[in-house]
């Protein structure tokens, strides 16, 4: 059995490398799951502060699940089960455009429908789906991140897609 290199993560360099490795993922996870009203950036910071405070008890291999659990709990402490509404980036207005005003209006309507449809997804569906579609992560990576099986990820994402399409066509 390979001897563990580090028993804990109380070393600054190690801790910093963990931050570089997980902070973005944690941020995305919190953002897609709970939206940005609850400050996923701050929660990411807080989760890492908690990790540092408990650095003696956490081995490097456990750091990721520690961070995600803490981040999730921090959110749950505040979340009041309101609808999570994610913002999309507005297309930059082009100075010369071939797009007709009708097309632009239609496009705007579509985005609003999509926004509503996304907020209608369950937290689990939304997180997995957006990690896949927006972040372009493979199912395997998401499974690792969320500590679930690849099959479950597949199900969540496929289910999310189906629900989105249904909601959009209904609206």
């Amino acid at each position: 059995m390979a001897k563990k290199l580090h028993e804990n993560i109380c070393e600054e360099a190690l801790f910093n490398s963990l931050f570089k490795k997980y902070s973005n993922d944690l941020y995305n996870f919190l953002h897609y799951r709970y939206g940005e009203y609850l400050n996923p950036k701050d929660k990411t910071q807080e989760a890492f502060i908690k990790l540092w405070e408990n650095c003696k008890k956490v081995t490097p291999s456990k750091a990721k699940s520690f961070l995600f659990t803490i981040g999730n709990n921090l959110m749950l402490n505040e979340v009041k089960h309101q609808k999570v509404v994610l913002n999309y980036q507005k297309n930059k207005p082009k100075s010369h455009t071939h797009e007709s005003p009708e097309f632009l209006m239609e496009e705007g309507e579509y985005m609003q429908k999509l926004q509503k449809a996304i907020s209608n997804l369950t937290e689990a569906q939304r997180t997995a789906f957006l990690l896949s579609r927006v972040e372009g992560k493979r199912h395997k990576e998401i499974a690792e991140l969320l500590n679930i099986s690849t099959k479950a990820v597949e199900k969540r994402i496929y289910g999310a897609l189906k629900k989105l399409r249904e909601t959009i066509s209904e609206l």
Partner: protein
Amino acid sequence: MKKEDLITKWLDNNLNSQELEAFKELDDYTELIRLDNAIKRFKPNHFDTDSELEKLNLSLKNRTQKQNNWLKPLLRVAAVITICFGFYYFTSNIDTSIKTEIAQKESISLPDESQVILNAMSTLTYNDNNWDSNRNLDLNGEAYFKVAKGEKFTVNTTSGSISVLGTEFNVKNRDDLFEVICYEGSVKVESELHSKILKPGERFLILDNIFIKDLTVIETNPYWINNESAFKSMPFSQVIAEFERQYNVSIDVNNINTKKLFTGSFGHDNIDVAIKAITIPLNLTFTRNSNKISLKRE
């Protein structure tokens, strides 16, 4: 390949070129691609790992500095404890003082069950702390002591000190008079010039800085604790001073010779009887005007 599988594979970003072609042939292709492109716009603002890490390290640094501030609350606690302890120390070392006014007697129980009866216009000061190992008190005036057995018991007066182990004695320390009478056991009296060990019934007396030769007493306790002042060959001035202490009056002696010796007593209950008791034996008359008494030779 089924449509569902194709879509799943597409969702996993895992289509090979052949499958991709098949996927493009699907009826849903346009819709899916439109949806997918739109979805991409939900990407949050860029997460700058480096600047976030910097922020984190900064707040961690502040936190450790805060943790170093444990010294401050600790100092606060220490200050409170010091004040409390100091206060306790101060109050526990404060002397207990008992003072009697004119015509007042006070019976006091010391911490070791020793009894003290304090005559009028007297002050007794002692310290409760360590009483058992340090029986020491200051007296100004007259008091009768019944000392419980134990460590050395010392009474300090301006004229001298009296030390005993366990006995009964009376101390009278007035202006120019220092008198100790032993009623039981033995008493050691030390003044500046004289030192003597008294046996029961013996008296130590210094009057106007003159040591008076022994005179024995036969009573088993002083008269005054039974509300009577008795004198044996005492200058009349001492009698008058005691009278003034017991009755809150001022006595004008005019030109009477107050050095004349007086033997006798007066009670503390009735001023009319008492004034007669000290004037008639010396052939004096008196006139009384509220708290002023004027004496005259007959």
